[in-house]
């Protein structure tokens, strides 16, 4: 089956083109096209995965471009990582396709939405199949395009438009880093293929400085895509898109592309201590940073968005700590439970038509399915034992500890505490307490919406068991081809992780569930910290005041230069041509004297030149 893995991305691509062509006529039936195509993708991915479980890496490449002596190849590779990502992406995409049928019901541009989803899924699947950097970059940009289109799906809303632009520009800043890194690698190695790059990094063709430089440059790309500090600001704003999009793109798949990129280039990063440290520090800082912001936000999707940023930071921390497996493992579990959380949030929004958690509450009884499903996701992300998040987070903590990043380890622990706290704050505010919204007829979502959630909930619990210290580390063994050595971590790490998450839950319960603690007992004590968090550390404002204003000033300057200098030159040229043309045509007036005069003026000019230069001009 691995030989035909390249077909996997083609199904959604077909869906995209097909819906683009005839979607207008099909209206909501276009959902079935999308669902069917992603289902085929998913089934084929599964088949590829099972094939890969027993087999070895399959790689097919063809020469795509020949420039001089340089041959650029294109193809696909089925490594363990690729096969795994293929399944995760196609599964989440498939479920989101189903879910969207209910969520987007009645939207005028229903088929367009499905077409965009198809485009995005194609790009994402293509991205994970790419065997070289160039191809990765192409799909990387396509993924960005899909994200842009879907964030701006409600383009008649100013916020959505701005958010789409912001996402595109912020990720583009990262992409520039990625691009420069990629070109540097090509310059040094002479090939875009991952294998060649790893070989060069290993045998010293690449100098140590160059390895560090390129690794960090490519990491900048990952920072942009995965919403890591300082390029994270686009991700919360991207929540202006439809909620299924948030689930698919801004939680499960695209933002994980950055993590995937670092994982795919892991040997390159391993060759440089500095690069690894950079990844770990950025990841750890982002995890804590985003978690603190998440503590005080009141928009349900924004809380989830900051939680996503925080969890992505976790993954980066894992990768930076040298635990490739932990990063991918957390990526997988996070994809499931975060998609679940977003879909459940979408279900809630669908029911009460608001995103403000202050206006929700008391939904537990009204939504008998969504409530428990959301709870499962919350438990998973909080790292409560036996749920998937517990195992993956534990793996990351162990990796940070054994790798000697003590400070980062404690940062991760504190982040875990915050995560548990704000997730349960969210849960209690939305589902607990009494009703605070004015929606009369709150009803459970239709089956097309709950069904994918149920599947994801099952996965959110079960996905953890592919890699546990208790029952065996299947995923790790397989991803590393059996070379995985689970470091015997001190048992207390697991205990600490459990304790902090339970503590966070308990505190949230005290404040928002039981309300024995006033909600503002802490925020009233540290008002400045609260407003700092509420305003997301003023990062957006900071960017606006510095980069934004600087860019505006430069643009103004350039626009004036354009208006007066460039256009002036253009006008001058046009006027010159025009004048000489009219002058020339005025000379052709048929009068002999005019012709004689012109001829003589020319002759006089020649004579004068000759007289004053002696003929040597």
């Amino acid at each position, binding site marked *: 089956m691995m030989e035909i893995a390249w077909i996997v991305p083609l199904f959604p691509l077909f869906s995209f083109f097909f819906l683009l062509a005839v979607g207008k006529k099909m209206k909501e039936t276009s959902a079935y096209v999308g669902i069917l195509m992603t289902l085929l993708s998913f089934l084929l991915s599964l088949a590829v995965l099972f094939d890969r479980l027993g087999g070895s890496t399959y790689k097919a490449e063809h020469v795509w471009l020949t420039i001089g002596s340089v041959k650029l190849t294109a193809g696909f590779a089925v490594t363990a990582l690729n096969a795994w990502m293929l399944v995760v992406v196609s599964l989440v995409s498939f479920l989101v396709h189903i879910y969207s049928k209910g969520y987007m019901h009645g939207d005028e541009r229903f088929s367009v939405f499905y077409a965009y989803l198809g485009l995005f899924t194609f790009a994402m699947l293509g991205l994970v199949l790419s065997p070289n950097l160039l191809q990765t970059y192409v799909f990387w940009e396509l993924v960005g395009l899909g994200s842009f289109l879907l964030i701006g799906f409600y383009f008649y809303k100013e916020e959505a438009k701005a958010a789409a632009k912001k996402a595109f520009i912020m990720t583009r800043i990262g992409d520039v880093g990625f691009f420069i890194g990629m070109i540097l690698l090509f310059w040094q190695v002479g090939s875009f293929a991952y294998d060649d790059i790893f070989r060069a990094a290993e045998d010293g063709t690449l100098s140590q400085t160059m390895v560090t430089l390129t690794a960090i440059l490519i990491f900048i790309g990952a920072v942009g895509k995965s919403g890591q500090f300082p390029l994270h600001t686009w991700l919360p704003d991207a929540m202006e898109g439809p909620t299924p999009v948030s689930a698919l793109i801004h939680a499960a798949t695209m933002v994980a592309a950055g993590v995937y990129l670092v994982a795919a280039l892991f040997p390159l990063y391993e060759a440089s201590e500095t690069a690894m440290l950079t990844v770990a520090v950025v990841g750890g800082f982002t995890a804590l940073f985003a978690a603190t912001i998440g503590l005080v936000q009141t928009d349900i999707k924004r809380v989830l968005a900051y939680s996503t940023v925080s969890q992505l930071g976790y993954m980066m921390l894992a990768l930076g700590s040298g635990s490739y497996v932990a990063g991918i493992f957390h990526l997988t579990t996070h994809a499931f439970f975060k998609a679940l959380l977003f879909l459940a949030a979408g279900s809630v929004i669908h029911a009460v038509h608001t995103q403000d958690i202050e206006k929700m509450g008391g939904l537990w009884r009204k939504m008998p399915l969504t409530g428990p499903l959301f709870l499962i996701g919350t438990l998973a992300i909080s790292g409560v034992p036996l749920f998937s998040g517990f195992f993956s987070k534990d793996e990351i903590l162990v990796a940070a500890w054994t790798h000697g990043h003590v400070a980062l380890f404690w940062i991760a622990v504190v982040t875990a505490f915050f995560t548990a706290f704000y997730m349960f704050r969210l849960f209690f505010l939305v589902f607990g307490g009494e009703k605070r919204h004015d929606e009369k007829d709150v009803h459970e979502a239709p089956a097309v919406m709950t069904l994918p959630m149920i599947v994801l909930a099952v996965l959110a619990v079960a996905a953890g068991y592919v890699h546990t210290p208790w029952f065996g580390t299947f995923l790790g063994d397989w991803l590393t081809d059996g070379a995985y050595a689970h470091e015997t971590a001190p048992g207390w790490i697991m205990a600490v992780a459990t304790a902090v998450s339970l503590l966070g839950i308990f505190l949230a319960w005290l404040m928002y569930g039981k309300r024995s603690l006033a909600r503002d007992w802490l925020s009233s004590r540290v008002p400045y910290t609260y407003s700092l968090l509420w305003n997301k550390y003023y990062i957006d404002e900071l960017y606006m005041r510095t980069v934004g204003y600087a860019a505006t000033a430069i643009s103004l300057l350039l626009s004036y230069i354009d208006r007066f200098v460039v256009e002036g030159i253009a006008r001058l040229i046009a006027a010159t041509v025009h004048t000489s043309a009219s002058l020339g045509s005025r000379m*052709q*007036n*048929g*009068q*002999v*004297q005019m*012709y*004689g*005069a012109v001829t*003589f003026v020319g002759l006089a000019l020649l004579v004068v030149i000759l007289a004053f230069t002696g003929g040597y001009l």
Partner: protein
Amino acid sequence: MSSVSLSVYLVLALILFCIGLYGALTKRNTVIVLICIELMLNAVNINLVAFAKYGAHPGITGQIFALFTITVAAAEAAVGLAALMALYRNRKTVHIDEIDSLKH
């Protein structure tokens, strides 16, 4: 020795030539244009005769040339005037700026 040298004659001829040229290029009446051309030819004649006396090889040849020039100039004036007559019959004008059939 004469105090009038060659260059003085040449400069005089140059001035007359320039006057004739300017007139030929700007005058409106075709007859005047023709006569201006005669003036230019006269300026040339002065040169020829001056060279005949003060040139590198003084001799009668310059004067002979001047005579030929006068002959040809007279013929030119006659033909030019005849052409002018024909033109006047057809266009009822002697103004050179109204004769612009070259444009078409």
